[in-house]
């Protein structure tokens, strides 16, 4: 046996392994193609301006009109509220962990809980708010958009804190020291030097977090109640939700309902993919040219 020519068995094994890897990749992208293709082709039937601008009020499941406006509005408000609370809070927590807390016991406890929250099943986040907010404090018993926001916030928080923390740690200590050397106080250094330097990365992390919670159905299902009409107030009365609308339409066997479900799924995928795309574009655009 010469060194340059492996024997036929080893050669065959090598070729089989190559074939298996390629096959695995093909198998992995088949569902993606199938999902995107079905959602686009089936969703396009009902997806139009009318669908986006009308609710399901006084529309029976067997009718082919009706739309997702109430659900889109609800989801945007719930996700928006969750983001408005999560972004400043997680920024502050991450700043504490990186700039103030070094190896302090409080910082260790927070890191531990962020780890715990990271692996939290989304339905359990819904149950948290159900037992705390709804059953415990007795608020929004018939459901409200804000209760759903609270559950979404629990799911977004660990992603936002972890990604912000990583970005802040990437900021060179030399930048901070240079700022201190100029007599700038610690908080001004953080606000004027550290945060601006890390900003693109932080924005990317936040947007990926928003994209993740936008598609969450399980916690919303427990908290938002049932509404087929437009309710612009997230703080009282049940509100619609786009992922929940997909779910409820799929539970109906009527073709008109199923069609609306596909159109709602298409709307949801467009929103989520758009957020993902923008987040990645910001990351790519602000990345050092060498790593592009």
């Amino acid at each position, binding site marked *: 046996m010469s060194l340059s020519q492996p024997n036929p068995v080893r050669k065959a094994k090598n070729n089989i392994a190559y074939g298996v890897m390629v096959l695995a990749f093909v198998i992995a992208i088949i569902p*993606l193609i199938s999902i995107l293709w079905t959602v686009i082709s089936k969703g396009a039937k009902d997806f139009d301006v009318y669908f986006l601008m009308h609710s399901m009020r006084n529309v029976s499941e067997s009718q082919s009109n009706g739309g997702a406006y109430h659900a889109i509005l609800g989801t945007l408000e719930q996700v928006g509220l969750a983001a408005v609370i999560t972004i400043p809070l997680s920024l502050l927590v991450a700043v504490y962990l990186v700039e103030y807390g070094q190896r302090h016991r*409080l910082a260790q406890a927070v890191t531990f809980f962020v*780890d715990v929250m990271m692996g*939290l099943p989304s*339905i359990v986040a819904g149950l948290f708010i159900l037992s705390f907010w709804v059953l415990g404090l007795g608020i929004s018993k018939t459901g409200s958009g804000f209760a759903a926001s609270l559950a979404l916030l629990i799911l977004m928080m660990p992603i936002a804190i972890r990604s912000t923390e990583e970005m802040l740690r990437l900021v060179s200590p030399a930048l901070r*020291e240079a700022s201190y050397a100029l007599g700038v106080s610690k908080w001004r250094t953080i606000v*004027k030097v550290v945060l601006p330097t890390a900003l693109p990365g932080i924005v990317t992390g936040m947007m990926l977090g928003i994209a993740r919670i936008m598609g969450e159905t399980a916690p919303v299902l427990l908290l938002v109640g049932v509404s087929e009409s437009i309710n612009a107030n997230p703080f009282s009365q049940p509100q619609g939700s786009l992922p929940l609308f997909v779910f409820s339409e*799929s539970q109906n066997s009527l073709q008109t309902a199923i069609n609306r479900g596909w159109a709602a799924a298409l709307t*949801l*995928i467009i929103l989520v993919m758009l957020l993902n795309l923008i987040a990645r574009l910001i990351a790519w655009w602000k990345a050092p040219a060498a790593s592009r």
Partner: protein
Amino acid sequence: MSSDTPPAVAESEGRAPKPDPTPSALTAKAGLGDRIFGGSARGAAIFILVLMAAIAAFLIYQAEQAISVDKVNFLTSFTWDPDGNNTPNGVPEFGIAAIAFGTLITSLIGVLIGAPIAIAVALFITHYAPRALGTVFGYIIDLLAAVPSVVYGLWGLLVLDNHMAGVSKLISDVLGWIPMFKTNGTYGSSIFTAGVVLAIMILPIIAAIAREIYKQTPREQIEAAYALGATKWEMIRYAVLPYGRSGVTSAIILGFGRALGETIAVAMVLTSVPGLVTRILQPGGNTIAANIATSFGDAFTTGRQALIASGLVLFVLTLLVNYIARLVVRRAGKAGA
């Protein structure tokens, strides 16, 4: 003054390195602004700890309320009837055993199918595909992780399940002598279909972590394997796979943990049937998470509290699994592997 700071900082970066004083030695005395900003950062950290503690307390309280009125053993009973709709005198009877079994078996099927494919995909992207193409392929697989779970559910229910019926019939025809693969003549909407959906959902998670690990295989080990005359597969078998073993094991466990908690996709695909379901190819089966989503709407006070109790079990289960995943990595780190 503050607007001039960044350029000044940029200039000072290029200078010769000075002795490295600790940053705190350089900070001025904490002024009012510092105390407010530092205080609110610390306050935010304390706030989320207090919030978590309050939530845990309420969760345990509600669960305890339900378990205290349960007439059967919560951990070993197969029935789920907390509102007493079908029990004599309407007493609450509910246990976690059947749905916990369903949770474990669907997740196990998900991992058994998803993990090998994910590993092969990661190897393909890092060691077979051309570099530039590998990055693009990586993005494509990442897209799978961005699809909302309700969309997986809709697709699983209306597209995948039609195909799964045929596959299930084939498996049942060949392996029907094993009790698990016996059926009542109907196929699909089964534990097997739910497992396949879970496999697709956890594939991008495992693949992403495995990709990062395989990418870091030391160059010397790869070159050394080639220098010994190894084929590409032998190089992977003896250099890349052993290097990534602990990290990829932990990724697989993390994927398993994710599958345990997946709710809406499983709820949409499975036809829920009361009691223990062991035949994985015929319609039926339930999981802890799916049971919460499907029974919540009709549940009264005890019913809701019972669902919270089952959620607590799911929470502990996922905590345990995630902890094991971290342990695997830490052990390997200590061993120097």
